């Protein structure tokens, strides 16, 4: 057997014999292989080589994982898997707080994986062990029962918010966790990688998503979420991306299987091309654009970059508005079952525990998302892009169900995943 460069004929023979060894040939192919083996000593030698290698691989020792691996995973997850539960408003704040922390921590795991995994999981456990107190829950119920409080920038749309106290509490929890995870990861980045699964969890199998990434690094990346609730808007945004001179197009490299199999194409744009795209996206999807940074205190940083005095000023809304999905099921005996959407601060979460947040508007993952207001925010993204050295990723998502059913129903929250 020679070790020189192989010819296509050699490759074909190798593949044939290798597959024959594995019993992966059809009857006809197998017969052909056997005939070749009878007539060709070199083929027989190759087969013996392949068999020897296979035997050596099979003889490798199997390592056993630590005994507590499953237990640790179960503990980190918060326990048993459950069917996704629809939003339950009385406990929404708690879910959102814990869920937001969980999502962020999972992200931290991916970014600073080597050193931060255990710390992140411990923090997550800690968060789980500190749910909102009964008094806090009651205060939230009362706040919701008092009626809608239009969040800044929401134009007085019918909605309710959780109490300021609850929101502050959520903020505090969120940022404390972000700081601690980032510290543990020795990084300013608390959100990156992960979460294609969250995208699909939130969008469902009917969802379509297009992810634009430029350039291929999460560091210093401006995340731009564009969610459309109208088929026309989605088509327009999609057309913009399809017409853009992408560096690369293709299927996502981050598929996690059945759960995400409908989440689809990925595009990469150069920074220069991305700049050209920003304003057009704003125009095409008014009110559907949220920008975020994978940093601690991203909200403040963005506000400063955009020349805004504070994140919650007019035109900037730091909330992920959580709309209750159609057919939401309330737990029997709930003290409060308001019909209006609720706005809370942290980003929606991964996992069954955060199921109440799965029908939300766009929000950043890990960092904070800043919605650009209800109307077109012409030029804001373009200015932001020009003023900062950030790279940019764009994700556009539309739920077909949402788009087809209601113009006012908010679309699900997208999230970024590993590439």
């Amino acid at each position, binding site marked *: 057997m020679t*070790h020189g460069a192989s010819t296509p004929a050699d490759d074909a023979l190798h593949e044939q014999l290798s597959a024959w060894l594995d019993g992966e040939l059809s009857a006809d192919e197998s017969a052909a292989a056997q005939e070749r083996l009878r007539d060709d000593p070199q083929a027989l030698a190759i087969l013996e080589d392949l068999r020897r290698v296979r035997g050596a691989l099979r003889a490798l020792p199997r390592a056993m994982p*630590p005994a507590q691996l499953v237990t640790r995973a179960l503990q980190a997850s918060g326990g048993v898997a459950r069917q996704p539960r629809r939003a339950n408003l009385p406990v929404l704040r708690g879910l959102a707080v814990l869920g937001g922390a969980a999502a962020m921590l999972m992200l931290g795991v991916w970014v600073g994986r080597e050193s931060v995994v255990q710390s992140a999981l411990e923090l997550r456990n800690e968060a789980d062990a500190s749910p909102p107190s009964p008094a806090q829950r009651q205060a939230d119920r009362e706040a919701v029962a008092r009626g809608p409080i239009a969040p800044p920038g929401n134009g007085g749309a019918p909605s309710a918010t959780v109490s300021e106290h609850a929101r502050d509490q959520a903020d505090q929890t969120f940022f404390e966790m972000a700081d601690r995870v980032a510290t543990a990861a020795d990084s300013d980045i608390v959100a990156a990688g992960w979460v294609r699964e969250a995208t699909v*969890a939130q969008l469902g199998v009917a969802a379509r998503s297009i992810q634009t990434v430029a350039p291929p690094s999460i560091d210093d990346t401006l995340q731009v979420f564009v969610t459309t609730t109208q088929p026309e808007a989605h088509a327009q945004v999609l057309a913009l991306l399809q017409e853009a001179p992408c560096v690369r197009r293709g299927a996502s490299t981050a598929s996690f299987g059945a*759960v995400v199999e409908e989440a689809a194409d990925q595009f990469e744009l150069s920074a220069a091309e991305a700049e050209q795209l920003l304003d057009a996206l704003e125009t095409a999807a008014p009110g559907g654009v949220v920008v975020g940074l994978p940093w601690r205190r991203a909200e403040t940083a963005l506000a400063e970059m955009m020349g805004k005095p504070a994140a919650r000023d007019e035109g900037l809304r730091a909330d992920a508005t959580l709309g209750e999905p159609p057919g939401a099921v309330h737990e029997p005996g709930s003290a409060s079952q308001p019909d209006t959407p609720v706005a809370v601060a942290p980003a929606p979460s991964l996992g069954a525990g955060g199921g109440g947040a799965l029908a939300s508007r766009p929000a950043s993952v890990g960092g904070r998302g800043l919605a650009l207001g209800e109307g077109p925010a012409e030029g804001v993204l373009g200015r932001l892009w020009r003023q900062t050295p950030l790279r940019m990723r764009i994700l556009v998502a539309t739920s077909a169900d949402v788009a087809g059913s209601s113009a006012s129903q908010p679309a699900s929250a997208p999230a970024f995943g590993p590439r």
Partner: protein
Amino acid sequence: MRAGNFAVCAAFQSQQRAGADEASDSALVLRAQQGDQAALTQLLERYAPRLFNLCLRLVGQRADAEDLTQTALLYVIQALPRFEPRARFYTWAYRIAVNAALSHRRKARPVALADADVRASDASADPLEAAETRLAVAAALARMPAEFRAAVLLKDVEDMDYADIAEVLEIPLGTVKSRIARGRLWLRAALDSGGGAAEDRA
């Protein structure tokens, strides 16, 4: 002829075993989705050793493999409520672990010799030659191009059939066939050159 029959028989047994696991997996998945903690635990315990071993072979470091396996299990737990019954848990779980490990490898240092190989070789009661061969195989495997390695490991260590490997790696069947053949030949060449173990021990 005998080899062919043996291979077919082995593949059949593999399919039978996979089928039996699948049926049981499906039942466990269903129960776990309904909130059955014991079923979830059983499911995870069934797969944790397999996923860990695979991660270890893909990334080389035991600590990394533990982290990656735990991350994969965590993902399984969290995504299980949304897992579609028509999909197969078996390939899905492997896909999660492989994706996690390959994603890690792109960022990580070169794969080192798996701890298990060193310990097994040091403590082995086998003849010295056998132990050295095993060490050489492990060392060569650690240097094998990632795209070959995943396919070869799934075939020769995890004993998957090509269709399942294609599903796990999300590549066409023909590519699976090619990668396994090329990976095996790459490994044979590495072993013949004698550099595998020597490099890693140096």
